[in-house]
């Protein structure tokens, strides 16, 4: 469970965590990552994204629902989504599943 004795991390702190995890996983210079960076621009494919979310779930002790995970295409999507999960707020999803990013065909 999330440790409620500590203040929630700020958006900046979450951004730094995401950038650091991306940097570590994909060998990207964190200085090149911005909130608006798209996974596609960073060379992060769907499987990389699943691994990134797993790493962040572990670090922050949160569970990102599958449907929300599928919507995350930018660093901002992840930072905002994680912030909401940590604060216990719902993550809104568009009605249609949208264009499939898709982890895999299985």
């Amino acid at each position, binding site marked *: 469970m999330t440790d409620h004795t500590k203040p929630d991390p700020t958006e900046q702190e979450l951004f730094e965590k995401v950038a650091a995890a991306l940097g570590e996983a994909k060998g990207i210079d964190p200085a090149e990552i911005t909130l608006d960076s798209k996974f596609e621009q960073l060379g992060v494919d769907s499987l990389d994204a*699943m691994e990134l979310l797993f790493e962040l779930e572990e670090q922050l002790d949160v569970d990102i629902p599958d449907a929300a*995970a*599928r919507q995350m295409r930018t660093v901002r999507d992840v930072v905002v989504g994680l912030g909401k999960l940590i604060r216990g707020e719902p993550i809104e999803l568009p009605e249609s599943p949208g264009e499939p990013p898709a982890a*895999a065909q*299985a």
Partner: protein
Amino acid sequence: MTERSVVVTGVGVVSALGLDHGAFWSALREGRSGIAELRGVDPEQVGFRYGAQLPEFVPAEILPDKEDQTLDRCVQVGLLPAREAVADAGLTFDAELGARAAVVTGCAVGGKLTEDGEFRKLYAENKKRFHPLTVPRVMGNAGASRISLEFGITGPVFNLSTACSSANHAIGHAFWLVRSGAVDVALAGGHEAFFCLGHLKAWDALRVVAPDTIRPFCRDRSGMILGEGGAMLVLETREAAQRRGARIYAELAGFGMTSDAHHLTMPSVDGPARAIAAALHDARLEPEQVGYINAHGTGTPANDPNETKAIRAVFGAHADRLAVSSTKSMHGHALGAAGALEGVATVLALHHGVLPPTANFTEADPECDLDYLPNRARAQQVEAALSNSFAFGGLNAVLAFRRA
């Protein structure tokens, strides 16, 4: 020497749809799904709630031999359809035929239930000893070996593990063994049983399992549903089958396989399309002769539009005149056994002149624009039919069947 024609003379199936091929076919033609809430594992721990598990059965009733009851479930679901298929074919193996026979199985993940149980003892229950038969129970070839023992089959016996394409690779290689004259008869198929916490968690982590049900090719599809089971086919030459007056379900006419060399889990259009084309070429079939395709159709966001594009790439305008369905909507995705269940579905479709539907169909995804036989089977005698399997790792295997 002219090439030998290879035919299917016996089939056996255990799946969520029932414990023999009669029950399997009844459900398929009615569009009835075997998907239900998970049993034997806690859905809260797993992370998803639904699967296509075998109906409840009393092991002593269908496996009267005590020793068979101790086999890993994965082996049991291979042995049962092998017995059914051999009986269905009316075949008796003596030493001579046994030496001219092969067993080729597809089993991708092996004895996960045994493994999970032993690991639990070690890590959770602080026990020190493993069961001495753990290794022979968990090995991937346990099913192939048990089947060879059952019938005294002493020719080529092996297992193939190529994820979701395992059974198609197995049936395809067995077909080539018979066609080439290396053996006279083969038992080929796949078997898989893996509904244990340790393995289901791995699927949950990949985020590809649907929270409710599988809706292949639909706009609102949300992933796959895992299934367990096994299916076996008896393959022999047409000449031998005719000589002994055996019923011929269909001809297994061609096999094609390719690799994407593209991505570990994301499919390409080119790899599957080339596998379909290779199967047609091997079968000496023109695209226009194909009337039905049993699709890989996993219901994942990635597979379904990709498979649709691959079918269009091969069949061109004829793609609009053939029927495509995903029977995974009823028996679930049985991984290494998937191609065997679907191969039997395809053979029975040709035999009965009935094309099984895609169940749970709501509204087609605009990117999936073929005739997917939504929810209702169709009485239609087609000349030839394909069964597609496209695996993780980019491995594609396609079987081509022709009406007997």
